[in-house]
């Protein structure tokens, strides 16, 4: 056994490699700070646009912070009704999340507890998510034109529900498999119906997984651009599409883009911060349970 363990380091503070260890720590810390600042700087840069005056936005070379924080850009967005697109996003993402969660979770229960269709059906369902959105939206658009569903809430909500169903089913299958089956069995023995067991035993037990999955499902719909670009015109424009409407041939309205980005992004920050514990499982499609 060599003496190079943490415990020894504490007892022999003047040891040469302890000093090396301290320097390593300082180096790691400095690197962590620099990297974090690099990754955050663009976010700061777009957000701060919202608080600059027009002169400050279009200063060249650019100025890094406004002389005074002002909220005029937000007032303009509210006055012109641009903020309504956030409401449209809330409706489409919210309703489609509720629908996808309900239908996805009961399907997941069927897969997890009854092995319906074996492993093949589960694989088929998740493979639906691997199809590129552009390939989904093109034929759907043709059908929607036929039915007059373009630029309607039901059209976009149905598409988001279908797009998120595989994710919800896949994730919830994992969460339900983590629940011990004995509780359900004893509830059935007590004479509860299958639906009662599902609603009063399984749903409450899978509560954390349900909320975490719902948050990520919501974010997928909330952040979606390509479906909304194709399927929204005037009535139900969502916030990502609205952001691109501020790009112009002559001039781009950076202050408005900054303000819309803040309004559209801050809710997501809070949601993710709240469910950070489930983030890794959520984005790795359940591959990491940690």
């Amino acid at each position, binding site marked *: 056994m060599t003496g190079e363990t943490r415990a020894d380091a504490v007892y022999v503070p003047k040891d040469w490699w302890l000093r090396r260890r301290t320097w390593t720590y300082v180096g790691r810390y400095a690197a962590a700070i620099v*990297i974090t600042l690099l990754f955050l700087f663009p976010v700061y840069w777009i957000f701060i646009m919202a608080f600059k005056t027009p002169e400050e936005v279009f200063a060249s070379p650019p100025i890094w912070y406004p002389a005074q924080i002002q909220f005029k850009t937000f007032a303009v967005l509210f006055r012109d009704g641009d903020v309504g697109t956030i409401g449209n996003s809330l409706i489409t993402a919210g309703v489609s999340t509720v629908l996808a969660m309900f239908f996805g979770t009961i399907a997941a229960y069927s897969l997890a507890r009854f092995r319906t269709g074996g492993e093949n059906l589960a694989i088929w369902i998740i493979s639906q998510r691997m199809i590129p959105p552009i390939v989904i939206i093109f034929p759907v658009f043709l059908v929607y034109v036929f039915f007059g569903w373009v630029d309607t809430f039901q059209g976009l909500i149905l598409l988001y529900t279908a797009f998120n169903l595989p994710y919800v089913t896949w994730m919830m299958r994992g969460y339900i498999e983590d629940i011990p089956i004995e509780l359900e069995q004893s509830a059935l023995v007590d004479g509860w119906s299958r639906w009662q067991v599902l609603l009063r035993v399984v749903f409450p037990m899978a509560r954390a997984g349900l909320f975490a999955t719902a948050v990520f499902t919501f974010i997928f719909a909330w952040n979606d651009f390509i479906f909304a670009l194709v399927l929204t015109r005037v009535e139900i424009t969502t916030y990502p599409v609205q952001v691109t409407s501020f790009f112009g041939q002559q001039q781009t309205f950076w202050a408005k883009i900054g303000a819309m980005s803040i309004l559209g992004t801050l809710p997501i920050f809070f949601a993710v911060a709240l469910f950070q514990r489930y983030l890794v499982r959520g984005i790795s499609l359940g591959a990491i349970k940690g």
Partner: protein
Amino acid sequence: MTVSTKIAAGLFGKRVDAFTDRNFKYLLIAPAIFILLLIGIFPLINLVVASFQDITILGEDKSFQGLLNYKRLFSDARMWESLLHTVLFMAVALPIELLLGTVMALLLLEKMWGRQIFIALLIIPTVIAPIVAGATWRLMFDNRFGPINQVLGWFKGEPVNIVWIVNSSYVWAAILATEVWQWTPFMFLILLAGFSNVDRTQVEAAQIDGASNLRIFFKIVIPAIRPVLAIALLIRALDLFRLFDIVWALTRGGPGTMTETISTFTYVKGFEQFDTSYTSAVAIVVVVLLSIAVIFALRRVEIAR
């Protein structure tokens, strides 16, 4: 028992309950499959039919045209170039994200004051809407109002005026920077979780045996996180294949068709030029090619295990 089942049981006797119990598992999964078929299969059939017709912005010829659109597709250099851009970009971006993500994960693996705060801040780019990320970097790279030229100018000692998203030498670099910025944190987060789950006793045993850090990393850590690595790479590869939002915000495929990806190409054909039948053929070819690639990739992943 709910009220409705009680009424139903009263009307039909015991048979209703027996029915629901036996078919319960199918009843649960039926709506999900119905919705997926509604949005998946029904339009897909429509797509296949349209690809054999001749529907363009000029007119709708719904008679059977054989392989007309497929022949056109195989000689369409613009389409194959957009596919090539997509695959090449993936081949460049994926290793960079993997490497940077690994470095960042190793940096923050051990205990450090404020470690959780660093992690929470670092994942921010990944949860932002890709279209907002694209808009952000369009401003970062703006030749007059962006800070990147400004900072480059400080190093160079004279004003720099690179028109990033128009100049053909720099435009891919701008897209790459945006992509790497947004998705390296994704790799970082998954790898961090993967590294944290590696059995520490094995690593410590190897250290006592005098194995070098590099050897430990490649002989113990990498094999241990292989499944996690495979999933992360698969998810990112599929995302890179559908690359659209960032390119749309930065360049819209320009200058010319230089930065067109298969997604932006399909969008332009289908929704700007209304070349319906041709776009249908392109969509089908894309799905077939992607399916082959995914099946191949999944088989490799299974062999790796």
